[in-house]
């Protein structure tokens, strides 16, 4: 198992390098000269040229990228043009907000979406199934930020149950998390429903019924265990997408996370901050996908036995020896 995880980690390296190079390349396309931006409009051409040389901007893109990555490994992602602070510190300051938001959204989607999906599948074509299908269709058609604004009008401005903006307490996160989860929630309902419908029709379910197990037990003990595996994977894969979605949702609720940071940095043409922050989001998303993948292998016995030796086998092997 350890070997397998190690192998997956090694496979992650080219992906991380690829993501970071891609973003580095895209950002290098920006028309402005970073040296000129730092020194300001009135600096002489010689000064700009000298700074370009000093910053290594005259080297080829690959060399610049290699330098960037080696620095990044040592925790140096450059300095913000705007604040003069190390970018890594700013990112680490803001990331917890975004992380909490994304985790909260995944939790809501999983905790509410999976049971609704199960009920929908078990009671296929009932009113509850139809209702949940309509809700999930509407949720996937809604722009998240608008959904957030509507929630804010109803629950923050009119009912005053929750604060409308900020991120200083648990209550502040309720509306943003619900907002961010809307797409994933709908996706969870649909995925759970369709995998459950598939599992309910499997032969082993008939075997379980033939044993005399009651309907609830068949669902809980047999179908669900099989259906949950793909559902959990989908949920995990959503995490990266939610980190991206947080960019817009954070600005709806004025949460000082990585999303608002990126948006502001883009508006202020603060290239080092934008590059680093977007790379950070991309890489975290990739790492989470990996973790989900490894977990999945561990939960599913069909895959597990390919990488881990089950105890029973090794014991009977010993006896044979």
């Amino acid at each position, binding site marked *: 198992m350890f070997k397998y995880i190690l192998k997956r980690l090694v496979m992650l390296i080219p992906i991380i390098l690829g993501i970071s190079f891609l973003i580095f390349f895209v950002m290098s396309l920006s028309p402005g000269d970073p040296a000129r931006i730092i020194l300001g409009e009135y600096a002489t051409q010689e000064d700009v040229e000298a700074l370009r040389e000093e910053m290594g901007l005259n080297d080829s893109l690959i060399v610049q990228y290699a330098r960037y990555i080696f620095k990044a490994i040592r925790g140096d992602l450059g300095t913000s043009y705007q604040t003069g602070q190390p970018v890594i510190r700013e990112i680490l300051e803001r990331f917890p907000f975004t992380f909490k938001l994304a985790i909260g959204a995944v939790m809501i989607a999983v905790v509410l979406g999976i049971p609704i999906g199960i009920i929908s599948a078990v009671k296929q074509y009932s009113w509850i199934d139809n209702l949940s299908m309509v809700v999930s269709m509407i949720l996937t058609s809604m722009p998240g930020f608008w959904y957030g604004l509507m929630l804010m009008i109803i629950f923050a401005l009119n009912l005053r149950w929750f604060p409308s903006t900020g991120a200083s307490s648990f209550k502040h996160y309720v509306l943003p998390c619900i907002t961010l989860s809307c797409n994933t929630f709908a996706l969870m309902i649909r995925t759970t429903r369709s995998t459950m419908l598939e599992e309910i029709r499997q*032969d082993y379910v008939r075997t379980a019924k033939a044993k005399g*197990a009651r309907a609830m037990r068949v669902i809980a003990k*047999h179908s669900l265990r099989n259906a949950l595996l793909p559902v959990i994977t989908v949920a995990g894969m959503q995490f990266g997408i939610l980190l991206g979605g947080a960019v817009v949702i954070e600005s709806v609720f004025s949460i000082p996370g990585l999303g608002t940071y990126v948006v502001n940095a883009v508006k202020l043409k603060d290239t080092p901050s934008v590059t680093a922050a977007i790379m950070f989001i991309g890489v975290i998303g990739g790492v989470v996908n990996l973790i989900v993948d490894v977990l999945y292998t561990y939960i599913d016995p*069909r895959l597990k036995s390919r990488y881990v030796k089950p105890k029973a086998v090794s014991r009977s092997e010993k006896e044979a020896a």
Partner: protein
Amino acid sequence: MEYRTDDATVYAVNGVSFNVGKGESLGLIGETGAGKTSIALSIMRLLPDRIGVITGGKILLDGTDITAAGESAMCDIRGEKVSMIFQDPMTSLNPVMEVGDQIEEVLLLHRPEMTVEQRRKKTDEILEMIGIPAERKHEYPHQFSGGMKQRIVIAIALACEPMLLLADEPTTALDVTIQAQVLEMMNGLKEKLGTSIVLITHDFGVVAQTCDRVAVIYAGEVVEIGTAYDLFEGEDHHPYTQGLFGSIPNMNVDEERLHPIEGLMPDPTILAKGCSFADRCPYAQEVCFREKPHCREKNGHRVFCRFSKYPEADREEDVEYE
């Protein structure tokens, strides 16, 4: 019983009547689509929800009619008094559950008085009985071969020593050497536990090896029923049975070619007024298309054809066991 879909109603089983005695094994033989599995599923009351419906008749188990039983009562009967083995062992086991747990689940459901220890011991015994080392109970289905999986499925079915075992083509998915092994095991268990068996198959060889009595099913109806001896060596047969024998190769007679039965099974969405085999029967007369044939019987060997040499008998309506 019928299958009702949006497009049509399929009359899958019509007026089938037979009984199985204690410790006896009855073979149901017929073509694919004749309604054999539907009969078994009706007895288990596991017909597909909202689609499969039992429209009439009785299924008597130990004297009580289970067509009237509620779902909860049926849950107590399934696995405890009546068990079923399904056709494909590859998909019949839960892929993410240890096989030991899958066997133990039956005990858990029907023997609540047993302690955890007793249940584990019993599971081990069952596994040993079907020839699988007890220490392999923590493995998952994909770690076993097809024949072993089918034996595990049989173990599940026999865990509570049911009165009646319905085996739906238990050997079709297996290769020939393992077929014999599984059939032998079922025979052995029948003798040891005194279980009655209904064996569904389309293989005469399997019938000859295992069954005391045989019912030939055609288009959802019993066309002939008798002991295995009656069927293979009896004086008279239903034309369909004759056709079936004609379509299997005979090793003792040197023949140029096989004789398949001409034509196809009748459309199951239309209930035949006369004999359902009339369309394909070489001896069919005009009357066969008009009226249902009578039951002809001699020493318990029944043939449902008006041209049979046997004398007429009263017809029974119910499906009965024990």
